[in-house]
């Protein structure tokens, strides 16, 4: 066991865990941030996607000991109040079915929109190809990202997480 101090959603959080503990389980079991989901444990489904230093990563493949001072943003920190254009678009378009993969989808999509605020269908399908949706909401995810891009273009800015 060892102590690690992480910057999670703008807060400093200290945990005492085995150094090989994946960030996924640190978030879920130790920090009560259960929005980041376990699906496969091998980086194949990306239900556990979070942002690390601004980049989307698989939390199940990220040992706590390798994080250092890089900022971690999870679905709980994507916005303070569910106001990120993607979160709004997801609710408006009723994207989810079971919803289990959607935190990962949203985190990957958020990174895509940061890099490419007006993605094409192909841009979206390629960027999102790593994120499995067992229920098959891919068409609504695509529509949701387009809608969020429109909201962004219209000036809807997410309020930063506290």
């Amino acid at each position, binding site marked *: 066991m060892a102590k690690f101090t992480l910057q999670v959603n703008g807060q400093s959080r200290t945990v005492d865990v085995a150094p090989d503990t994946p960030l996924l389980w640190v978030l879920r079991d130790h920090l009560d941030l259960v929005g980041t989901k376990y699906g496969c444990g091998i980086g194949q489904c990306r239900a556990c996607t979070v942002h690390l230093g601004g980049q989307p990563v698989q939390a199940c493949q990220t040992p706590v000991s390798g994080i250092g001072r890089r900022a971690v943003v999870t679905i709980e920190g994507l916005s303070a109040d*569910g106001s990120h254009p993607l979160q709004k678009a997801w*609710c408006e378009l009723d994207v*989810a079915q*079971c919803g289990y993969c959607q935190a990962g989808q949203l985190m990957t999509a958020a990174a895509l929109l940061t890099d490419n605020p007006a993605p094409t269908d192909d841009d979206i399908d390629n960027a999102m190809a790593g994120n499995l949706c067992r229920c*098959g909401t891919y*068409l609504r995810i695509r529509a949701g990202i387009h809608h969020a891009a429109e909201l962004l273009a219209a000036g809807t800015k997410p309020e930063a997480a506290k």
Partner: protein
Amino acid sequence: MIPCENLPTRSALDRRDFLRLSALAGGGLVLGSFLKFAGTTEAAEISKTAPQGDFTPSAFIRLGLDGSITLIAPRPDSGQGIKTSLPMILAEELEVPWTAVTVQMGDLNAAYGSQTSGGSTSTPTFYLQLRQLGTAARLMLIDAAAQTWGVPSSECFAEAAHVHHRASGKSIPYRDLVARAAALPVPEAKSVVLKDPKDFKLLGQRVSGVDNGKIVTGQSLYGIDFKLPGLVYAVFEKCPVFGGKVVSANLDRIKALPGIKDAFILEGTSDIRGLVPGVAILADSTWSAFSARRQLKVTWDEGSHANDSWAQFTVEAQKMAAEGKGKVIRQDGDIDKAFASASKVVEAAYSYPFISHANLEPQNCTAHVTGDRAEIWAPTQNPSAGAGIIASTLGIPKENIIFHILRSGGGFGRRLSADFVIEAAAIAQKAGVPVKLTWSREDDLRHDHYRPGGFHFLKGAVDFAGKISAWRNHSVFFGGGLSPDEFPNRFVPNLLGLSSTIENGVPMGPWRAPGSCVFAFVYQSFIDELAHAAGRDPLAVRLELLGDKDEVPGTGERGQPYNAARMKGVVKLVAEKAGWGKKLPRGQGQGLAFHFSHRGYIAQVAEVTVSPAGDLKVDRVVCAADVGSQIVNLSGAENQVQGSIVDGLSAAWRQELNIERGRIVEGNFAEYQLLRSTDAPRKIEIHFLKSDNPPTGLGEPVLPPLAPAVANAIFAATGKRIRQLPFSKTDLSWS
């Protein structure tokens, strides 16, 4: 031992409510016994927990003195949308604005009737009942307002959680009527007149799922998210060979590992779908448990299925087919004569593998068992099965089991089983502390209750008029069976259906549209083969096959009628909407298929492009669906259709589980490949054909026609006939 005094408690189920509900199920609306009031001795447990003075006209509705409107979602939601759509039905008749409604997931309680989410039954089971309950409550509120004003109820109407008096223009909010309404008698059944559907304001609209806000912000919602004070995290290692038992395990070594609280063997039972033998490891975190498990060494008695393999099953199936003996499922006309006088005879062997449900949320359950009491928190489709198996396996009386239903990260039939519930409860009983059991992905793929594989040996004929005249089907299964009414049975005059079963030890269970999900592929593909053999348009052959009768009766007492008119309706509609028969270049094709299951009549046209190298793209899927007179939630319904089409393609394209040395080979998503966004159909078009029939479910019936529609389109594009699932087994290259 970890104390946990802070657990929520609630008294057990009220047996009397069960009797009332039984009466209801048997004889329609029994309002007097079904509706219950807060504060009376007849009140259901659920109403006892309501604040005093609230109006609780049934277990499903609670109107608070503070104006709050709480509607209960009775059945588990695993993505099919019923946590939203069922309360919508109540809200429509109750005349309350959807934005004012709070939906609460019901725990397991007999007051809610059957709480098993399966078989696409939720809409057909609840549609009328919930309309009646909403109406009865609305009538009571109208009566309360009429009394307040001293006017006849007939002069009043309800709208937007207010009762209005037509003549005077007065209105009064529901919250001010709660106390008076709660004291009124329940309306006579005959006075409960439902709305005219043309006056619906909410039903048929697009309504966003009630959990969406929590889903997009990552709040605790699913079974796997649940926590309790003093919770211990468990994993459970089972024998990789089905039916195997634990001989010994290095428990002392495991118990010495960091974070480990305990490790023990559970003897289990011989029920391969119940509590199977295994080794439990309990830890202070999920990762401690997962890590320790990597050090676990178990000696197994692998039992009698340690040499089973898919290769051996295939050989057995072929042998059974060659012998030509099987149980006769159906025999019509004179099949030998029809083959002898045929213009064309086609023989083909079809097969499909075992596949997994692969719920993205692995199976899990939290349990706390103390003495003869248990409290359970489970992502389940079937809470009563969970309570039942705890009672029968652990000897805990059912009335001592409190069962909380949490959202499931996917169901598809997997969570109708309760193996993960009994595992958690058995571990928790032995541990004496609250336990959350979490399966790894590998557990999930290797210990599923699988969709069975199967083999079909088909021989069909077309006569000199180009009509399908004979159909012989020898099905070789692993369990389950074949209905004598499975299409095209009843529609081909000369027909023989045979069935054989391969002895095996694989645990199997319902997978989205059980049976139908594979039969449609086989039969709708083979019909296509016969149409092409006859040199005819597959659409014309299908319409001819459906015949000129509107309805074909079922066989035997329990046989379901087949409404050929409804099917022809969706087939014609889909052909029209898809532009069936349009000229396409080589490498592109259209395929058509239809299927009736779960009360729904569905037809689909798929359009594909196959590159000369054999790369498949599904460009467009057009779907026509007749699921009755009313769509409840248009957004949810369209989501189910899209999802079924993507799921159908996902299952058909690459999913297969191999069995070698009695164990499932594939363990995770690197080997077991679900469809990704890049392979999803680019366009899905949905047309609901409203018919004068009761509204029925959409979780399942849209899936079966997808695989044959795509396979038939691939044939049209390339001339390659797919007779084996997954598609990826067939080389689709062409030149």
